[in-house]
């Protein structure tokens, strides 16, 4: 990751009918970084991606790619490639023809086309699948073909529109790591769109959290998680307890809350009753009923039984005050 700005977005807006999908977005993206546009559906993240790709034209604002304003150019005149949500592989072509498509369009010699396509196929670990049709591949394999088809063009920026959304959990987690490693290996800037906060935290160098057509917060995964700038970010990214105390609402992460029968360990504490203990594999969740509502903790503690009178506590400095 360098300090050269490769994509510079300024004052971007876009409406569909009465709906303001993108309501003024400014964002600088650096060469070689993995940046995630994270947000709930309808927050404008996909529209921003589609405007970078050229599938949508902005109402106002500019998109500079390597210093040149491309916001009015058609997709085929932009040095970016897209991996689509449902892959968008050409069903009438086999895997190799799909991958070669972008190279053939540019009039690259036949031999170079096939050698580069084979190289891309190896990169996504699909050697030997070149002759298959997309319909003969599994979801994960189609995903890899879509990736190879985009990467083979060596774009300066790769756009990924919820590419893992259709995969099952196991495969998704595996692909997250593979994608991240691939990105490091090829050194291309990745702009990744997702609504899955865990995915965003796992893969990104930086995350832009979208809400109502605007970027609510921009930062590293750690910054976003530990120092959320707004109630929305603190609730959307990661789990959080929402509690009313002394007339103000606060958010506190479950892993910062401890439960005990004896003295509290933090400077904020509440008395309550242990309602339930839920075992979820790697962690155990403790649900404590207090006068301020149910508080969840995931900090392990021994010898607690449902119905016990307990104290939940945490450090005041770690809580997020909702205004």
């Amino acid at each position: 990751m360098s300090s050269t700005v490769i994509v510079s977005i300024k004052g971007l807006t876009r409406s569909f009918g009465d709906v303001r999908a993108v309501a003024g977005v400014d964002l600088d993206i650096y060469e070689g970084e993995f940046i995630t546009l994270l947000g709930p559906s309808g927050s404008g993240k996909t529209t921003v991606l589609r405007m970078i790709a050229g599938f949508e034209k902005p109402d106002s604002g500019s998109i500079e790619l390597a210093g040149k304003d491309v916001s009015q150019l058609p997709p085929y005149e932009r040095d970016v490639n897209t991996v689509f949500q449902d892959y968008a592989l050409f069903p009438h072509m086999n895997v190799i023809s799909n991958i070669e498509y972008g190279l053939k369009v540019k009039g690259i010699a036949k031999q170079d086309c096939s050698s580069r396509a084979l190289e891309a196929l190896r990169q996504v670990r699909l050697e030997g699948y070149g002759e298959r049709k997309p319909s003969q591949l599994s979801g994960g394999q189609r995903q890899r073909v879509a990736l190879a088809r985009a990467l083979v063009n060596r774009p300066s920026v790769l756009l990924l529109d919820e590419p893992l959304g259709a995969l099952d959990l196991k495969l998704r987690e595996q692909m997250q790591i593979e994608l991240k490693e691939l990105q490091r290996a090829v050194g291309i800037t990745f702009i990744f769109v997702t609504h899955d906060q865990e995915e965003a935290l796992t893969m990104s160098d930086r995350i832009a959290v979208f809400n109502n057509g605007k970027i609510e917060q921009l930062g590293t995964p750690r910054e976003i998680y530990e120092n959320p700038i707004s109630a929305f970010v603190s609730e959307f990214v990661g789990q959080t307890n929402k509690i009313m105390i002394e007339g103000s609402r606060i958010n506190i992460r479950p892993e910062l809350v401890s439960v005990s029968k004896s003295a509290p360990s933090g400077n904020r504490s509440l008395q309550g009753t242990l309602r339930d203990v839920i075992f979820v594999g790697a962690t155990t969740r403790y649900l404590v009923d207090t006068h301020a509502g149910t508080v969840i903790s995931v900090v392990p503690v021994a010898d607690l039984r449902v119905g016990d009178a307990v104290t939940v506590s945490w450090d005041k400095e770690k809580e997020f005050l909702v205004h």
Partner: protein
Amino acid sequence: MLHSLPNFFHKNQRLRLIALLTTPVLWLVVAYLGALAMLLVTAFFTIDSFTGNVIQQFNLGNFHDMLTDAAYKNVVLRTLGIAISVTFICSVLAIPMAFYMAKIARPRSQKILVALVLTPLWASYLVKIYAWRTMLEPGNGVLDWLLGPIGINSPGFGGPAIIIGLSYLWLPYMILPIYAGLERLPNNLLDASGDLGAHNFYTFRKVILPLIFPSLVAGSMFTFSLSLGDYITAQIIGGKLQMLGNVVYQNFSINLPFAATIAMVPVSIMALYLYLVRRTGALASM
């Protein structure tokens, strides 16, 4: 007793199928295949030139006459030419029209456009062709009145008129399958093609056309076969020009076996066409 019949059918699946399919199968075999078989058989009969009675004796005379007489060969080639032109014109008009309907128009106007494409099918065939007759009338027709001032004349009655008339008549049969095919074509394939650097025409050639090919074939089966068998349009706006259907129609009352022989020509051409289409594999994905 009242309940026993449904129960009986419920228990006996085979009987249920028989009850369901008897009528359509009878219709297909007797009315459709039967008529076709009769046509085939009759084509090999001949006629007593003195009494005009059909002699039910197998001989190839009719086929010999048809294949050696240059006049019939011309009619076959002309009819084929007309059917191919009509199919070509319908495709060229239907693809952009269907593309607009399926991919560009808003959902509401999409429905209106489909209705508009269907409306001409509600009007009688004859009314539409007579309408074209007044349009094409040389000298005082609508076309001459409208385009005469800028130096374009009506083609008059004849081959071009038949092609115009038939293209007009069968266009909806081409638009609808292509529209359905384009509806099924995911938009993101078009996005993906553009994203990979393809201009619109390249996308059309490499992505859209191959994927709507089965729809194009479906449409062409209508326009091609309907044109091959038509004789009314030729009669009304064809001038002195004859198509295969006209020859069949003329011989129908005077030489039924020969009419049957001529009628075998469009049937054979269609069979050959379907065979060729089958070989492209387009039927499999229909």
